[in-house]
């Protein structure tokens, strides 16, 4: 277990070093050169620092950051999946308000500690969702005139 953060650090800093090196490569090969002067400078510093961090992680000398425990990962996964479906697909696919309502309610049901067997806790969740959506609709649609992607139901 003690080695878990260390391995994670190696993976994380390795990924960042990869990003750093690839953007450095892109900056130095792309044209027009005049537009890439600044990116070249940044990406060089970026790549050097990232590789340094990676080497430190390999040597096990990373001091800050405590990684992610397996338990935390298990807990966050359902919420993260719901959020990702909501943001990347549903918000545009089924409509902004519809998707937010569903996602909000699902997240509440997933993480709210109130028992799933009681009718009362379900009613409470529905009430919170309705209240939140009413505020959002009033603020963004009515007051600020924000145009959201079309809804499928209305």
């Amino acid at each position, binding site marked *: 277990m003690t080695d878990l953060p260390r391995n994670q650090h190696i993976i994380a800093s390795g990924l960042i070093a990869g990003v750093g090196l690839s953007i450095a490569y892109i900056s130095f090969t792309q044209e027009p050169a005049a537009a890439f002067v600044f990116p070249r400078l940044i990406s060089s510093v970026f790549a050097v620092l990232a590789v340094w961090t990676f080497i430190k992680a390999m040597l096990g000398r990373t001091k800050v950051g405590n990684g992610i425990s397996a338990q935390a990962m298990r807990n966050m996964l359902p919420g993260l999946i719901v959020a990702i479906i909501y943001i990347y697909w549903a918000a545009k696919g089924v409509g902004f308000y519809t998707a937010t309502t569903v996602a909000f309610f699902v997240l509440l049901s997933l993480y709210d500690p109130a028992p799933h067997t009681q009718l009362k806790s379900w009613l409470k969740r529905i009430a919170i969702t309705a209240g939140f959506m009413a505020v959002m609709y009033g603020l963004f649609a009515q007051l*600020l005139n924000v145009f959201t992607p079309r809804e499928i139901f209305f």
Partner: protein
Amino acid sequence: MEFLFYMGDVFTPINFGLLLLGTIGGLILGATPGLSPTMAVALLIPFTFQLEPQQGLILLGAAYTSTVAGGAVSAILLKIPGAPANIATTLDGHTMATKGEGAKALQLSFLASAVGGLFGVFLLIFLTPVLAQWALAFGPSHLFWLAILGVTVIGTLDSSSVVKGLLSGCIGLWLATIGFDDIMGAQRFIFHPAVSGGINVIPALIGLFAIPQVITMFTKGRSSDDAEIITVQRHPIRLAVLEVFRRKTALAIGTITGSIIGLIPGVGGQIAGLVAYDQSKKFSKESEKFGTGHSEGVIAAESANNAMVGPSLVPLLTLSIPGSPTAAVLLGGLLIHGIFPGPDLFLNYPQVAWTFIDSMLIGQLLMCVFGLYIAGLAASVARVPHAVMAAIVLGLAVFGSYSVQNSMGDVYVMATLGVAMYFLERFGFSAAPLVLGLILGPIAEANFIQGSMIANATVGTGTYFFTGWLNWLLIAIVVASISYSVWMEIMSRRYTTKDDAVAKEEALS
């Protein structure tokens, strides 16, 4: 003292009503995620079409003042900075709120805002001619060095490792180069249509700060709620007043840094809060407490971002050049009534100009009073169970980032950056330096290119960037700042062990 003469105009029933409306409306708009002060003021412009010039400006002035302060509400309670100005407020403010000290954090922030704001407006009243020269003194070479100075702050800002702080800053600087470059119009690093327009700062801010917090709440799962019921502490206003004035250093640094930096066209407003935060951390006797819910952090950041409001209008009122996007919108508010700002604005339209400035003074006080009132109510947000909170913050983040440009692309950027930031934070990187890089990148780059174009046509790059007292002064500060960071890194090697760092991380999250 002419401003006292027109003070009475602020208190006529209609004008005072508009002032109240602007203040309350501004607080609400300011607290809405995604709605920066610029957009909030722009939204109010159509209402001023119907009003007299004086009334219109009272409404806009009050709204500008209070949207800046209102941004602190969402920054502290939800960790969603409403605008770049409020980034620094989240660092300590939100930590205080999670400890149940939300009321205290809000009270401090509104009091500090009022102190800074009043100071800024008084500068505008008494020192406008001097300040106007200062605002013009910053050419491309100086703005470039200023941006570099900001970059050097990155290493010491809210990060326990200088290297990781700098690396976070580099990520931000790189993200800022995505999209069309501002001068040549060339496309860079466009790997997905959502970023073809570049990364917009406000959705990025929302994602980088709010989403990691949502995911952290997810990691707590269903069961652990009972373990951490937060007792929301009531906090008497009297104590908050004492606290603000006890933290003289932070208040003074915040106010002065905010007013000086706020004056510099194009840069000021966005970084005033962060620079003031960093400076007061360096000067504080308790610098290790910064980031752990320390009152000085909130005071410095909030006094700075409101102190900037007054001086940021100097170039507009005296030279007729808007120094910030918000000033540009206010210019529109003047123009529709046929009022052209300039040196003789105060001679030709004293009734309008002085009443406008007076309304910003009174607006600061009203904003403080309302702010203190909400502080008591709003602090109970910390008692909201984390499941509800996570869903609310996620919903607000999506709506807020969408509403900036009515764009789904911005929402994707917000979410992607947010999820990535959660993982980065677990490995010792932090969001504040990253955001600073994102803001400073375009400033540094554009001014460097403009400066070299001017230099090539005239005196040559070396002379242009390295001569003149203002360049020397800025370079000296840059060198001092880098040396300080290097020295800190060497010193900290001796005593930072993994356990210390972990302990600090725990205190943070």
